[in-house]
């Protein structure tokens, strides 16, 4: 089983540049956790970022170096960093570890989190050699973080016909949700005003364009009017992110839309 549908270059570049809305970043981070191809492409685009930075020098204040040298304390031990990262990730609210806080002035929770960008190798993970596609109930770390647990911890709301969803808390500009589609079931026909990204976590779905299995991402723009249908045999669980509300063609879902925030 391999991933056939990957993130687009513009999405990877925007993620590398740090400009994606949070819901999209969550989907990108989750896919990259499952996909070595996109992980490598992301690292390569970050190299482009490094080259752009190399080309951006502006003179500093005269005493800048002296000020910097005066600030240098004992660097953090590798283990301490890994530990404080884990702390910052699992509990954004109550951070006790000095490690995550010590470096930058006024750091919000978001700050402590995004600071993890530099820490791509904290060495805290264990089963890297193992297959990274999720087993049932086994989700990539970024998603676990947003759900606050694995799939059993998801608070589903019914959308009718056995289809369920759970909105994940992200900032404005785009929304993220988990979708549960029973085996063989269709999601109501819908188009999009903006971009909709759908990442399959478990099972598979098919629409007019192709079949999407675990790890695959469908990138749907305004032009795609589609009816995703879950494969028979297994329910399909997806992470979907949109930067505009969906647009249903049928009347009933359209009336329900404000209620369900889909």
């Amino acid at each position: 089983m391999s991933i056939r549908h990957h993130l687009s270059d513009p999405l990877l570049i925007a993620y590398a540049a740090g400009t994606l809305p949070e819901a999209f970043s969550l989907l990108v981070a989750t896919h990259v956790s499952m996909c070595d191809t996109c992980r490598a492409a992301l690292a390569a685009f970050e190299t482009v970022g490094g080259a752009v930075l190399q080309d951006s020098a502006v003179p500093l204040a005269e005493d800048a170096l002296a000020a910097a040298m005066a600030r240098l304390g004992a660097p953090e031990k590798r283990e301490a960093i890994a530990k404080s990262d884990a702390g910052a990730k699992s509990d954004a609210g109550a951070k006790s570890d000095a490690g995550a806080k010590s470096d930058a002035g006024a750091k919000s929770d978001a700050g402590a989190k995004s600071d993890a960008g530099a820490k791509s190798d904290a060495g805290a993970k264990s089963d890297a050699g193992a297959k990274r596609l999720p087993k049932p109930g086994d989700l990539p770390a970024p998603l676990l973080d947003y759900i606050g647990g694995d799939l059993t911890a998801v608070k589903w709301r019914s959308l009718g016909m056995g289809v369920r969803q759970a909105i994940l808390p992200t900032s404005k500009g785009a929304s993220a949700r988990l979708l549960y589609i029973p085996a063989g079931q269709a999601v109501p026909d819908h188009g999009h005003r903006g971009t909709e990204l759908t990442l399959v976590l478990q099972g598979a779905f098919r629409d007019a364009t192709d079949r999407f299995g675990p790890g695959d991402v469908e990138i749907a723009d305004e032009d795609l009017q589609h009816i995703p249908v879950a494969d028979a045999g297994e329910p399909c669980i997806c992470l979907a992110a949109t930067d505009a509300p969906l647009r249903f063609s049928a009347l009933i879902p359209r009336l329900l839309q404000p209620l369900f925030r889909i």
Partner: protein
Amino acid sequence: MLLDLTLHQPIYGPKPANRRMSWRGVANSVTGRIEQTDFTALMLAVRDQQDRAAFAALFQHFAPRVKGFLMKSGTEAALAEDCAQDVMAVLWNKAAQFDPARASVATWVFTIARNRRIDIARRARRPEPEVLDWGPDTEPDQAEIYEAGQETARLVAALSDLPEKQRALIQRAFYGELSHSEIAAETGLPLGTIKSRIRLALERLRQNLS
């Protein structure tokens, strides 16, 4: 949808016979311009010996660039200067995380500066991919470290060879001025060129991951 990519070799497709040749050509053409300072060696001295002189040298080079990067990203000068200090402090404090086989110092500094910029904007969290362990205590290959260190220099040279308009677009994308849909819609963005330039980096990274 992917702009002019169709005009170029698919990056994950079959190898064109002349790919190696063309890369060697690129490397040779920029050899003279690759910077003299070995930032990787300086960074390893900071990481492994807490070498303050090496840090000072890195600061002299990178702090003005971080400041410039943040200013071009729309940060006002005084704040950008403070943040450059913060970014360099992270470089010192979190030096243990620097892995020379994975990224050049410039790339690593870029990711720290980018995250600092997101902090400033206080826009939103930016979830990170799961961390990969690249195997217990594998000694990084010297050739790999060298390659990772050279990538930035090669890319800087490649960017400077681009027409001004195209270079400006890449810069705007990484300064955070373009949204993903603007990047997708921007037909002047030389994605194909970027991808051919990062092909070596991609191959190296994919080999490491597989």
